């Protein structure tokens, strides 16, 4: 068969693409800048995933071992692509370890970066230790440490989850909806209620966008079975009265300002473009869209393609994406890369 396909990024999308190509008999070189595979779910220590409720370390861990043990896959962790030249069928990638990879095609599965809550200082992250992010709560659950206030280790009696932190906000140049945070927050709220039955969880929302068919299992179930409370308000600021956090805003359904004490405030952080996207764009010579994600043309005729022929893209590299959809896109990119590789071989033969 042809030269290997280079897959950049070992998260759900990259793992899915690599596994699909390898199972089809196509040699794959999988590089990841981190020292291990798995991407955000593993590196950020996610707890139970939506919608399967499987632990991330089992679900994504299974994908990792399926790729790492595969004879058709060469895994290079702690490695970046420094240079990328050539044409479809004949790419040459220079890696940070000095080696060169000749590739027939490449798939960018370079993912996203969590929004840094410090960029919304009015919501107290970085100022008050008990203001945390959804990622931190995921870690409290996945490590078994339990949900506790970081300041003094007490179990919170009242938790506020603020949605749309780093999403749908022109003030900070992030107009997009990050898709996953509503469902993730509903999921975390249920986990907190299960772990701490005496803890009340309030979710402050602008709209509830439990993407996919997650309304029943997450939005309804969190209200009906777990008594999570949803309050329509965008919070103005998070301060402290010295003992507890004070959450200020307007409850738009009551038309009253609210100023309410909480033990812990959780930011449902959005998905930013990968901080390396400018570099990736220059190295692979692919266009970014106006938000800084890797641009993709119309799905109908150009699924998985980028602005450069032979370079494909999958997962959250192109914008906020769920794990399930990233895996599907990985597989779609694999077939696109296979078609591209085989057509260049055919053309050479003719």
């Amino acid at each position, binding site marked *: 068969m042809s030269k290997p396909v280079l897959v950049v990024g070992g998260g759900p999308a990259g793992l899915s693409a690599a596994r699909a190509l390898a199972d089809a008999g196509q040699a794959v070189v999988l590089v990841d800048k981190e020292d291990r595979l798995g991407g955000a779910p593993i590196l950020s220590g996610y707890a139970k995933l939506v919608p399967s409720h499987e632990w991330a370390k089992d679900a994504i861990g299974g994908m990792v071992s399926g790729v790492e043990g595969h004879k058709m896959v060469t895994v290079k962790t702690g490695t970046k692509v420094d240079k990328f030249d050539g044409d479809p069928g004949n790419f040459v990638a220079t890696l940070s370890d000095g080696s060169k990879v000749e590739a027939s095609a490449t798939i960018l599965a370079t993912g996203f970066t969590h929004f840094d809550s410090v960029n919304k200082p009015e919501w107290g992250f970085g100022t008050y230790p008990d203001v945390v992010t959804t990622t931190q709560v995921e870690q409290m659950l996945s490590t078994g440490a339990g949900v506790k206030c970081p300041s003094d280790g007490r179990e919170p009696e009242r938790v506020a989850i603020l949605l749309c932190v780093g999403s749908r906000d022109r003030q900070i140049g992030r107009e997009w909806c990050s898709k996953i945070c509503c469902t993730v927050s509903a999921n975390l709220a249920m986990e907190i209620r299960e772990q701490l039955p005496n803890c*009340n969880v309030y979710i402050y929302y602008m709209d509830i966008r439990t993407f996919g068919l997650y309304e029943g299992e997450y939005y309804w179930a969190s209200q009906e079975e777990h008594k999570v409370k949803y309050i329509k308000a965008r919070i103005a600021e998070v301060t402290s009265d010295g003992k507890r956090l004070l959450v200020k805003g307007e409850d738009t359904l009551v038309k*009253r*300002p609210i100023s309410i004490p909480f033990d812990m405030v959780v930011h449902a952080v959005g998905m930013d473009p990968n901080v390396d996207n400018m570099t990736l764009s220059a190295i692979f010579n692919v266009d970014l869209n106006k938000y800084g994600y890797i641009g993709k043309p119309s799905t109908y005729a150009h699924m998985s393609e980028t602005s450069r022929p032979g370079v494909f893209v999958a997962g959250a590299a192109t914008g906020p994406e769920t794990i399930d959809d990233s895996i599907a896109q990985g597989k779609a990119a694999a077939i696109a890369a296979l078609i591209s590789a085989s057509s260049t071989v055919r053309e050479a033969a003719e």
Partner: protein
Amino acid sequence: MPIHEKSLIRPENLVEHEELVIDGVDVSGHWSTFIEGRSVPDYNEQLQEEIAAIGGGENIHRCWQCGSCTNACTVNAINPDFNPRFWIYLIRMGLEEELVRDRDIIWQCVSCNKCTYACPRDVNPEGVMKATAHWLELKGYTEMKPSMVFDEEFSLQVFNTGKIEEGKVLQKFFKRTNQPLTQPWLVHLITGLVKRFPVFYLMKLGWGAVFHPRTRDWGRARDAINEYVEERNAEIHKALNLDAKGAD
């Protein structure tokens, strides 16, 4: 600054000082009317559970605030302040102070149940209204409404005897609500009956008024019902943190 739309502000939140100087500036009198903040300072997390403990309120936690109940409401069409959606929200979030402000409106629900059939999440808003009116009474925010006295007399008689006698229900109802038994409509009804009814039936009525008919073997049913009612009352009182008798 003058306040043009004073009607939108609750009178207790309008504050005027006859003599007040702040940082050397005289802000006395009408031209310096202050509006006090109406911010919500806290949630009462028990409130939803309290309403849910009372019959009819069990499904309140399902509400997602679509407003179908208010849109369907018969009473709302007449009184726009009658807003079940809003009260369900206040209860869900535990904004007790706001809820109690409307104590003189909430009981006006006529139980037409249009909301019950409109609600997409099967909250049973009519039941919630009933439970909330009951809650207001139990907590001592409102007095027991005549309709509730009537219901109580009616049920008590059914529980104790297995049947009802309208005359007895009316008699006790009027007595408990301090109304004279000689209501014009009642006098009219009875004199009409006496004039037109066959003598045999009148005798039977009179006999029944003196020697109350009994339901055979009702004793065990009565005990079982009373036991259940006591059990439920104890549950409600426990959920509402009341002593056995109630707030008063």
